[in-house]
């Protein structure tokens, strides 16, 4: 696919989604009411992705303040939905409803994985936030889709964030050790060839056992940002250069942006992520004037637009910043590189140790 073809595909997707989400038969009460309140019809005015700036930024508070039923598209009316939570340490969490999206996203991701390092039929272990998170079902579906089963070890990131906020680092380490004990037992005593976990937990497992030495060939990793040096450390030392490290960028609202693991070393471990276009689009914007896209090679704030039949979310400003990178032969659209917490160089951000 060329960049022009990718753009045409995305524009077509935008038109399809405008029709879907802003038609009475298929759209959800939230967006249909919104259309009435603003007095213009996105079906008429948003014809390409460039027009998406006509929407205001999606506010994730809406996912907490609105009832979930208001985000159910009329086309899905009557079908029970999954509730997935995102973020938050106190109070009512933000929630997203869904049906099949996570399956689509992770099946698409599965096609990007190497069969050498993520063997078909191999079992997985997921060490990380389970509970009400999309990731828990998604990773299990990924394992099943590839013909394997999935073991789970839970970690509650909200508790970890509270501990960090209170500077109880000893407690953080003890909780991490508790999670590690469970993980190591499973890895040692079950046939597992693939792992999903977060960067810090991966390092923590590697402190206790040789991960590749216990048969794990592939590691799909995400959840927090990683500096190039940290990616190098995970690949070369934690995985001993034997298992493949696949960094990803994503969340409950987007799906999964993928990297190109084969090129990590050649790129000095600077990771570029490509969104699952056309289902979701990442744009690097000027934080002060978010309608402006930054130039290639420049840092800016990450803006996410999700364009699925189940969920429409225009121009959500992530709490991250990244470098705008050029399209790649494998992914004919912009990538986002060296993601880090927004304002990382100016203020203190608790990103979590999980």
């Amino acid at each position, binding site marked *: 696919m060329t960049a022009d073809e990718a753009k045409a595909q995305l524009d077509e997707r935008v038109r399809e989604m405008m029709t879907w989400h802003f038609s009475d038969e298929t759209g959800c009460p939230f967006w249909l009411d919104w259309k009435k309140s603003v007095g213009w019809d996105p079906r008429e005015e948003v014809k390409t992705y460039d027009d998406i700036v006509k929407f205001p930024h999606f506010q994730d508070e809406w996912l907490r303040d609105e009832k979930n039923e208001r985000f159910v598209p009329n086309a899905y009316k009557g079908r029970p939905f999954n509730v997935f939570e995102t973020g938050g340490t106190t109070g009512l969490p933000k929630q997203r409803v869904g049906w099949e999206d996570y399956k689509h996203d992770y099946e698409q991701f599965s096609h990007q994985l190497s069969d050498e390092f993520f063997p078909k039929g191999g079992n997985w272990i997921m060490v990380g936030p389970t509970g009400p998170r999309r990731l828990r079902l998604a990773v299990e579906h990924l394992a099943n889709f590839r013909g394997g089963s999935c073991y789970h070890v839970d970690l509650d990131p909200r508790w970890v964030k509270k501990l960090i906020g209170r500077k109880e680092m000893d407690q953080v380490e003890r909780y991490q050790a508790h999670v590690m004990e469970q993980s190591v037992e499973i890895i040692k005593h079950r046939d597992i060839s693939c792992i999903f976990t977060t960067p*810090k937990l991966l*390092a*923590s497992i*590697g402190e206790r056992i040789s991960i590749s030495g216990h048969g794990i060939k592939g590691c799909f990793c995400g959840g927090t940002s990683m500096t190039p*040096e*940290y990616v190098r450390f995970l690949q070369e030392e934690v995985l001993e250069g034997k298992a493949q490290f696949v960094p990803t960028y994503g969340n409950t609202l987007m799906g999964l942006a993928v990297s190109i693991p084969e090129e990590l070393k050649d790129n000095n471990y600077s990771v570029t992520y490509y969104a699952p276009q056309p289902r979701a689009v990442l744009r690097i914007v000027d934080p002060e004037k978010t309608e402006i896209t930054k130039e290639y090679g420049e840092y800016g704030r990450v803006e996410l637009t999700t364009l699925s039949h189940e969920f429409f979310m225009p121009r959500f400003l992530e709490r991250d910043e990244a470098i705008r990178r050029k399209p790649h032969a494998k992914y004919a659209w912009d990538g986002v590189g060296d993601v880090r917490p927004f304002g990382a160089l100016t203020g203190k951000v608790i990103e979590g140790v999980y």
Partner: protein
Amino acid sequence: MSAPHIPILRQGRVYKSLDVQTVPKLGTDEAAAEISFACADMIKYDLYKMDSARAALKKFSCQDLVDITKRAGEIFLNDDLPVGTEGALQSPEDYVLSLASTSGLPHALIRMNMKRLGGIFADIDVIFRGLTRGLDWAVLDKGYGEQGGAPVSFSATTSELAVILPSNSPAVNALWIPSIAMKVPVLLKPGREEPWTPWRIIQAFIKAGAPPEAFSLYPTQHDGSGAIIRRAGRVMLFGDDSTVKQYENDERIEVHGTGYSKFLIGEDEIENWEKYIDAIVESVSANSGRSCICTSTIVVPKYGDEIARAVAQRLAEIKPLAQDDPNAKLSGFANPMFAEWINEAVEKGLKAGGAVDVTAEFREGERFQQRDGMNYLQPTLIRVDSFDQELAIREFLFPFASVVECPQSEMLGKIGFSLVATAATRDIDWINQLFDCPDIDRLNIGNVPTNRIKWDQPHEGNLFEFLYTRRSFQFAEIA
């Protein structure tokens, strides 16, 4: 010389990180050094492997390591040594210039600190003997032996001595140098503006024949320091009173905090107060007043005003000069904001009443000065009317002290913790009380400046007792 790249040393192995930060020459945008930063998890991983570093040192006898340390001292002071990763060499003069460019220290002070460090290397046998109370070093080589006719055996409490170093005082490296002769590897986290001294000491040790595995150097961020503090077997760190409090019950951690060192004159000697002014001035101003062993409170039974004026007059002669001026004794601040914050704290104390800045009458200009792109604070002597005044017992990173009058009989009840106390007295009863005073860590009797310390005696803890524990043992015939 172009800006060298200071790498991470992982048991002596050079590691260039992808996380590189530039340290500028103070007051300019020009790079003085590029520094590789280690991630916290890498340090955690390496800590698991420190047994092999200790094994490398254990192959040497203590006598060999003492000899190596002595040779390293000569090399540190005189030789061109590798700096960075590109094969460049650093002469002693290059070292002075590099450290001055990032720390703000005058060249003369750096040379003085070099000399002090050289003294530690040279006296390692005396120091080792002093800290072990004359132990035959063969006991450590063999694991057991006799001392004073009694059987003794010592085992190391750790495979590494980790040190979180500050940026403002190269002399603190003196604290870890003896660890090598004691066969305990070091893991150093340098201050951001001061990688130069630990790097050069390490290079000197290696050139002198020490095994490179014994030296780990991790420039790192706050989380890396946290990992070291939580994970290393023995840790030395430098901090304020809150840091001391935080770790007071952790036997792995030795915090070197504020010293609140004091110069006391007894009632029997107070009529001779003029004889002590030289020692007091040196005690307050040595090393630009930045050491915990510098006097911050002068306690006298009478003549407080006269003593304050005499000391203030002398301190006011110490002015911000060019860094390369051989007479420069005052250091600029690497972090320019520190000078402003400290100055504000002094002014706040003065406004509270009961305190007078006696130096204001003698010095040129305000306390806060700028020169050559750096911020300075001119020496300050405060006459306070009691120990209750908030500036009476304060310690700052510049030559600062208060003078307070107090009857001799009440002094020991009021001085509080004192890392060093010099007492000018011949009064045997009072000297006995001074020896019994639990608040005094190091005690000098007579005309001894508080900054002149002997390293063969414990300094904020005994390094040997920190690194080793005595075990009981018995030998018998095999049955």
